[in-house]
């Protein structure tokens, strides 16, 4: 029942390896935190997990017909003044997902409004997205991912631009989705102290200098599943 299985994955850019023999399993209903210093290839690991990058070696497999909600670190469309409203963008998730092909229009609209309410953006539904602040844009991306009703949420530093209070609200919201809806979460963050009481497991990408090239290993904290990360290097 593993949602995503990464086995012996190695990857690099051009001829320079940056990830070596990475093993990660994502189980249903678990909240996995990915940590590491700047440049530790956290985003690359997520992109490999999502199938946006092809590994040099190893295997990445995802459960069939899995629905994934992805919140990237940066969305370039925000910089070019994308002419769209908040509602349009969030509803685009439901409109493109095969999962919603047979769902009635009213039901889809209800999902969109509920998700907007969850992230506190109901009143901004008809605002142009270019007029939003950084934190609001981040919440919008989260709403778009949640509207998919995903089995797996992949969040790349989703709390960037949020203040402490907003971050707390965000962790509560994600925790609700994990506990009530059984969604799995893979989240990159630098706020381990804040998120540790919610998360089930963590993976830390570490630089290993003594092997002659940049090599990252993984290690974990004690979690519910007690496995899943170990790296052989």
């Amino acid at each position, binding site marked *: 029942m593993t949602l995503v299985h990464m086995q012996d994955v190695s990857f690099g850019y051009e001829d320079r390896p940056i990830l070596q023999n990475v093993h990660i399993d994502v189980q249903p209903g678990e909240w996995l935190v990915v940590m590491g210093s700047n440049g530790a290839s956290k985003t690359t690991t997520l992109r490999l997990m*999502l199938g946006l990058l092809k590994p040099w070696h190893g295997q990445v497999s995802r459960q069939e017909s899995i629905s994934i909600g*992805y919140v990237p670190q940066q969305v370039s*469309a925000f910089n070019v003044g994308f*002419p769209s*409203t908040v509602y*349009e963008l969030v509803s685009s*998730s439901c409109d493109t997902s095969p999962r919603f092909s047979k769902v009635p229009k009213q039901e889809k609209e209800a999902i969109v409004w509920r998700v907007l309410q969850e992230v506190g953006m109901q009143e901004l539904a008809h605002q142009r997205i270019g007029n939003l602040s950084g934190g609001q844009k981040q919440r919008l991306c989260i709403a778009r991912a949640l509207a998919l009703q995903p089995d797996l949420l992949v969040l790349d530093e989703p709390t960037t631009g949020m203040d402490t209070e907003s971050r707390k609200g965000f962790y509560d919201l994600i925790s609700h989705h994990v506990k009530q809806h059984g969604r799995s979460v893979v989240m990159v963050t630098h706020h381990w102290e804040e998120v540790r009481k919610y998360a089930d497991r963590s993976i830390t990408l570490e630089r290993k200098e003594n092997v002659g090239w940049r090599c990252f290993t993984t290690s974990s904290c004690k979690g519910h599943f007690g496995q899943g990360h170990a790296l052989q290097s």
Partner: protein
Amino acid sequence: MFYYEFMQRAFWAGACIAILAPVLGVFLMLRRQAMLPDTLAHISLAGVALGIVIKITPEWTAMAVALIGAVMMEWLRRSYKSYSEISVAILMTGGLSVAVLLMSMQHSINKGFTAYLFGSIVAVTQEALYVMTGITVIGLFLIWWYRRPLYLMTFDEDCAQTSGVPVRGLSIAFNILAGMVVATMIPITGVLMVSALVILPAALATKLGRSFGQTILIAMTIGVFGVFSGLFSSYELNTPSGASIAFILLLTLICGLGLMRLLKYLKRRRNEFEQSFTIQPTVSVPQPISANEHLKES
């Protein structure tokens, strides 16, 4: 003006491209591919030259070459993801060099080339009109049918791919459609003015539109206005149609942006003016004793 059959054809063809080209332009601009129409037009020039040299209808060879260019453009864009402008430089110079080499092989075709470079309202043949109508109908239908995946792909390719949108296939299909539209536009706008009709309406519409749907409708309206006014002035002033359309669209863009700035300025001034009258007094003024209290005291 409409007494002449060539003018009827020009307006019909103009209406087709004026509706479809700005819609493509909105997507291209937001995907940071604003130079794609210009590149494909330059590539299709090689197709025009090839058609004349091998004695096949130049419109068909131009379209074939534009389609190959559209696929190559997508391939190069992915190969040079961080420097996608490189694909423009490679294909534009490639297309032009082939066109010039072919032209040098047959000196008699140089004169006919002017019409392809700058556009001519008499250049629209009945056959080209049928092709344009067909491509417009198919193009609009495809964009309407795939509007949501296209919207999401335009917003963010990674998000679209993880949401299940076949980004690679859709992107190639979109480029092919752009190639077909560009190739059919050349007789009216000319190679050098193609991007005017694709990008200028989109540039203004993205500023004016509040939603994506509204932006598309505004771009279409600007496109139709620009093409019809351009064709009209081209007929009346005997100027090249492509340049006339491009000039009117450019004027529309400048006026539109200027008007937006003016409205913003006036709004800001009005707000400042209103705020200056709504400042609350900070010193409390003693209230007069009411009639009852006055009686009580006495």
